[in-house]
């Protein structure tokens, strides 16, 4: 066990001094340790992996991970990840986003990434609040709960991220929480191995900005809430809507095969390359003549 922990630790950046920016009791530490364990267990090549995030507490996660890491603008992790993956499909691309990052400001990118099915893993850490900016309500803050911008209770209704991802066409959709650590390890590995766009919603806790406003006694109390509120997909299948009120359903919700974007694109390109029709040959000759206009200077190598 301790060897496994040591191995997982090698996926943390050596230069980056811990502790993290996260508060004591925050579930993000659980997510990060789970991710490094999975990376280590899978033996991911650090140089061939890119961990990409947006803004917020979750956005800081890649800073500590010893792969190629990219900390982008708020909501845009998936746009950047799309470019990284398309430019170098060899890379394992993992994005980490919070709830505000992924389904508020980045909501449009999120649904389109689900639809396109590019081989990227999206970890959505859902702590139901904007933690870094001080507790403003997010699109996943439950109706009636408090935030600093919902001082009398949230007027809006929350997103169900799993339903959103499913409806938008993601080919792997799962949910668990930072309490269910073994399941988290299992789901992250399964998601990374999945060929296509995968979403893992990780229900997490923010005691500092959410718990204190909503009558939790401390971080442990929030873990207790996760333990008590989670039901498995199987259990949920036997429960009435009334019984499911206030619960979240953990486990794999969607796992299906669909040709991956780059595979389809490259297959088309191969077919074009083999197309010997006069029109295609002429088009190819023309574009190749344009390529030759440029004389590429060699990169400066000292």
């Amino acid at each position, binding site marked *: 066990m301790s060897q496994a922990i040591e191995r997982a630790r090698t996926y943390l950046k050596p230069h980056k001094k811990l502790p993290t920016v996260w508060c004591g009791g925050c579930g993000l530490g659980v997510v990060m340790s789970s991710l490094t364990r999975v990376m280590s267990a899978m033996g991911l090549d650090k140089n061939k992996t890119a961990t990409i995030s947006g803004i917020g507490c979750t956005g800081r996660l890649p*800073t500590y991970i010893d792969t190629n890491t990219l900390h982008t603008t708020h909501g*845009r992790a*998936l*746009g*950047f990840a799309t470019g990284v993956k398309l430019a170098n499909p060899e890379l394992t691309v993992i994005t980490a986003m919070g709830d505000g990052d992924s389904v508020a400001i980045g909501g449009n990118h999120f649904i389109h990434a689900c639809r396109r099915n590019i081989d990227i893993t999206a970890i959505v850490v859902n702590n139901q609040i904007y933690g870094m900016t001080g507790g403003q309500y997010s699109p996943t803050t439950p109706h009636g709960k408090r935030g600093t911008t919902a001082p009398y209770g949230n007027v809006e209704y929350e997103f169900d991220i799993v339903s959103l991802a499913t409806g938008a066409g993601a080919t792997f959709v799962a949910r668990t929480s930072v309490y269910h650590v073994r399941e988290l390890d299992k789901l992250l590995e399964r998601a990374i191995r999945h060929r296509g766009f995968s979403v893992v919603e990780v229900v997490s806790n923010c005691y500092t900005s959410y718990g204190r406003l909503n009558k939790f006694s401390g971080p442990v109390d929030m873990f207790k809430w996760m333990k008590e509120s989670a039901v498995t997909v199987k259990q949920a299948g036997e429960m009435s809507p009334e019984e499911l009120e206030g619960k979240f359903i953990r486990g794999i919700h969607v796992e299906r095969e669909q040709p991956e974007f780059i595979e389809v694109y490259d297959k088309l390109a191969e077919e074009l390359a083999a197309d010997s029709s006069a029109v295609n040959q002429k088009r190819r000759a023309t574009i190749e003549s344009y390529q030759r206009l440029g004389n590429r200077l060699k990169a400066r190598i000292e």
Partner: protein
Amino acid sequence: MSGNNERSIWVMQGNEACSVGAVAAGVNFFAGYPITPSSEIAEFMARHLPLIGGRFIQMEDEIASIAAIIGASLAGARSMTATSGPGFSLMQENLGLACLAEIPCVIVNVQRAGPSTGLPTQPAQGDVMQTRWGTHGDHAIIALAPATVLECIELTACCVSLSEQFRTPVVLLMDEVIGHMRESVEIPAPGSYRVHSRPLPRDGQEDYQPFCGAHGDVPPMASFGGPHRFHVTGLTHDERGFPTMVPEEVDKKIRWIVDKIELKADDLAMNEETMTDDCEVLLFSYGSSARVAKASVRTLRERGVKAGLLRVKTIWPFSGKRLRELAPQLRSIIVPEMNLGQLVTEVERAVAGVVPVRHFGRIDGHLFEPDQITDFVLEEIAS
């Protein structure tokens, strides 16, 4: 486009020519979102990139488009997007990330009349200052403006080269007239354009520092997937790429991204001059407006006015060097632009009151007519 292959004379649209320039310069990744009057560039890239081993993707908006080209560049691609005013506005935040994180990429803005949706199919030059200052915070930008279809090829290739050389986003500032007009061009010979590649780290370099040049050199840039993994962030960062709030390090970083471009302003200046040797009235313009100004200069000369034209191809960084050199011989400088006064402020700054500078703007969605500029100049001289 079509043409005669043996003689290499083609009649080509500006937007097509821009795409040709991109391909010539090795662009192999394009992400974009449809918007008039730039969509022909995306269409060209969608058609041709799969033929040459590149990839095209149509993103869900312009924010995602620029995000994707920055990501692709980090993974080693030469990447480009194309848009117009509304889309360019949406790109500003990520443009800033590319400036700060020193990531090469090319953004083509085929300007149309604004603000807001404005006139989607009509020209303007109203994005000059947005190009310079659109993203928040201190930074520098390189922006080039073509005035002919041939220059759409040349300057796009030049944008790619400069973005690689300086590790910075570069904007090709076209306008609707140039983007949509078709013009005869003689396609240059193979190898005509020298395109720089980004500086790379040495193999096996242990202490790789991806950011902030140590000796005034643009720092080497590794690619995601290569032997040097590294961290990239939009937070202000140190040489390794890690966030810093140390005042000296923050100051150094911001000065570096500005100085690496602004201190090269005179070297980067590309101009075309028409009859400036003995001119007393200087027209200063760029893009499609400069074509009209050139016609006007010829007319003014026929009427005995010693007029000349300084057309800038490099909009940013702005170089005032040539203006200052010409200033002693000038009675006035007239700046026709399709806006209410943007680049004219830089002209005023450059000559610092030595010569009177007058702006002449047109903002009704139409290109100037030569008589308009000629008449304006004649009135100015008379007064």
